[in-house]
């Protein structure tokens, strides 16, 4: 893949990050929001982006990296257009999340965390999604999918 040249954060990203700072006592507090804003536009946080955000917030890249690597929903490597988070916590596990993960990975021919060859999907495990009365569940992009069955591939990717 051709390496894209980093041309700095976009005006939209900078504007959104700066808008967040008014809600907190200091700029460093915006770290997590800032990383999420970058991710909204670029799907993941590259080293270049991380350094640019750190500069904008007047903190060291190391400090921001400590934050970026701590949280489950900040991606420090490329992910597909849609990330599928399947719940692997206790109730979903009991009701078949392992099999669902296997079926989804086989369908896309990817391992966990990898991108499908068409760049569309990445599958990741996630902790309890708080919908245990409809287990097993998965989050496809922003959308929760409930009551998955052995036909999870159809239920998630359509027919």
């Amino acid at each position, binding site marked *: 893949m051709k390496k894209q040249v980093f041309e700095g954060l976009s005006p939209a990203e900078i504007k959104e990050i700066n808008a967040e700072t008014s809600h907190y006592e200091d700029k*460093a507090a915006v770290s997590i929001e800032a990383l999420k804003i970058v991710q909204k536009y670029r799907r993941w946080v590259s080293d270049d982006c991380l350094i640019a955000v750190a500069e904008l917030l007047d903190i060291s890249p190391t400090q921001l990296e400590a934050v970026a690597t701590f949280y489950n*929903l900040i991606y420090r490597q490329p992910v597909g257009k849609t990330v599928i988070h399947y719940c692997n916590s206790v109730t979903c596990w009991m009701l078949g999340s392992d099999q669902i993960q296997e079926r989804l990975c086989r369908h896309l021919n990817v391992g966990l965390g990898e991108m499908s060859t068409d760049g569309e999907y990445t599958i990741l495990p996630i902790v309890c999604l708080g919908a245990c*009365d409809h287990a097993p569940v998965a989050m496809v992009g922003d959308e*929760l999918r409930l009551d998955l069955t052995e036909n999870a591939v159809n239920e998630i990717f359509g027919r």
Partner: protein
Amino acid sequence: MEKMNKPLTKNIRPDRAFATLADYESTGGYQGLRKAITGLQPKDVQQWVKDAGLRGRGGSGFNAGLKWSLVPMDANVPQTRYLIANADEMEPGTFKDRMLMEQDPHQLIEGMIIAAYAIQANTAYIFLRGEYHLARRRLAYALLEARSKGYLGEQVLNSAFSMEIVLHTSAGRYICGEETALLNALEGKRATPRAKPPFPLVTGLWGKPTIVNNVETLCNVPHILHYGVEWYQGLGRGVDKGTKLFGASGRVKYPGLWELPMGIPIREVIEKYAGGMRDGYKLRGFLPGGASTDFLLPEHLDVVLDYEAVAKAGSRLGTGTIIVLDDQTCPVQMVLNLEQFFAQESCGWCTPCRDGLPWTVTLLKDILAGKGRIEDLDTLAGLTRMLAPGNTFCALAPGAMEPLQSALKYFRDDFERYIVGSHAIMEPA
């Protein structure tokens, strides 16, 4: 008057739509706030909630009004204070706050405004789980509605009290639910817990006095103010007051969530509301209040869901959402799933948790792979003591040990079955 018995869910509709401001107001919404702000001093509001007997619904069980009353509020202390709604619901098996926020967002908002008034905090944060996208959209909309009607912003309901609520969405880590770790997360840091004391209510967010309350706890507040202390106390069936959301998941006929009086027997939740076990399955045990509570057995079904009663039975009320273990699920594998969760979500700040939880996982995996030795069970029991309260910074590791220690007690045969030759060793030659 039937609805008065279910204040928390009176606006919850089967179609999962959400109550708009008009819907919320039509069932008495914002009357509690009106009463508090126009007729009561902050100290009175604290007293009402304390007298009502509302206890922390996130698992702590601490009296909410009492907690508020401990916030320093004299004229000679710094006047910046914060209120935080802990909406970082991530305890495996727990799905109550999601419903409250998705379907009746104004209830939380009103509860927060009243709580902020009680401690005179002008800024409040909703610390929302990053994965709760629908809740985020609906809360953001409800906040706009509340602002447009003067419930939020400058001079709430034309009083001298002004406040803002900021919706913060997290980026996912179980430890963020721990209140001091939550403060670090909100300050944009790694969510590691802080040493206590000082307690957050004295030295919290950016060093200012801060109250952190669970979503469900705050959702109770408007009703206490609106309908009064006596009415609230009358809702409970046992020792504890009010109603609570109780749930059941696993292989029961009708998994779900119900608002029920405190003090209701566990049997009623599992057998009546959840419809008992699915055909072909038997009840083997259950975690009464999420992943970090001790297993109980069918013999405990008549224990009532009060904080002390569940504690006396050897577990915790926790979040009140019951995870059911059936007779065809292996308890050892279930415990492995739970410990993998806790090991992954450990923040790594203190050694017993960072090292002890992966060690627990390794031992359980070895046992399940047939590579276990009978002494491993002693090692596991030793870990439950080593990772006990007092040895760690926060409650994550002690919580992780609860299902393990009770599984070793109640399901020891299941562990031993995986240990090759263990029965032979124990039998006389």
